């Protein structure tokens, strides 16, 4: 049941693949990768963070990176990326950082 989509996704030039682009404001170049539609947002988020050399972290405050698309920050990263395709086979995200202040004192 789970092998068929994975097998499909490994075929070069799989027509179902989605071309994903992620921009990050300080970077001069975006992250590009093709993913199968079933790929979870979290996988893209992690790959983009690695490409841009950033990571979630915590000290007194919490720093977490999110993908956003069309002005909407994606908080449920367990969704497949196909949920965000409106037309065609392309997705364009922006990587943004959320800082949540810790409690003072």
């Amino acid at each position: 049941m789970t092998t068929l989509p994975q097998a499909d996704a490994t075929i070069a030039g799989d027509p179902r693949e989605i071309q994903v682009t992620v921009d990050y404001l300080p970077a001069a170049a975006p992250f590009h990768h093709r993913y199968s539609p079933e790929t979870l947002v979290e996988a893209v988020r992690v790959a983009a963070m690695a490409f841009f050399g950033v990571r979630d972290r915590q000290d007194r405050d919490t720093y977490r990176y999110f993908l956003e698309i069309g002005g909407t920050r994606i908080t449920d990263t367990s969704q497949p990326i196909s949920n965000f395709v409106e037309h065609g086979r392309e997705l364009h995200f922006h990587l943004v950082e959320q800082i949540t202040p810790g409690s003072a004192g």
Partner: protein
Amino acid sequence: MNVQPYPGIDVWELDRSAITATLTAVQRPGRDGNEGGVFWLGTRAATSIVRAVVIPAGDGVTEAPGFWMVTPEVYGAVSRWAIARGWSLLGICHIHGEGVPARLSVQDRNHLVRAPGVLAVVIGTGGRDHDPGLWGWYEFAAGSYREISPGERDRRLRITDEAKVEVWSADLRGCRPAVST
């Protein structure tokens, strides 16, 4: 297919019009005793050129005494606007209030964008220090912000009088040309 996201920067070109626009923008929150700041955006390369001053203000931006924060939604709005122009975030310039040194605080170091080559600039006295030589200049490198010495700043910061930068404001709804008041 993917290329290096952070080309090394030898020189930053900053037009005087960007300095003027920056000071004008940050003096507004400064007059109210709040912190505030601007983004410097432009083309990132060995010689990186500041093309625009973007002023985050309004919805999605907190300006308060000792505290300035821009929400990820505003960063997203600026990102969408900048990418369309092929521009990157080159620097973040913010003010400290009267009596607070023009140096990055621990909180600044943690809260500012952490990407190689990004400038963090601090203007003291609520934005009334007009001389960039009095500002604190820092570059993010090797995982933290390091101060740029006056000698290095003289060598790597080229102040020009060549082209007026664009001045934009940004909030949750997006970016639009700034209106002088």
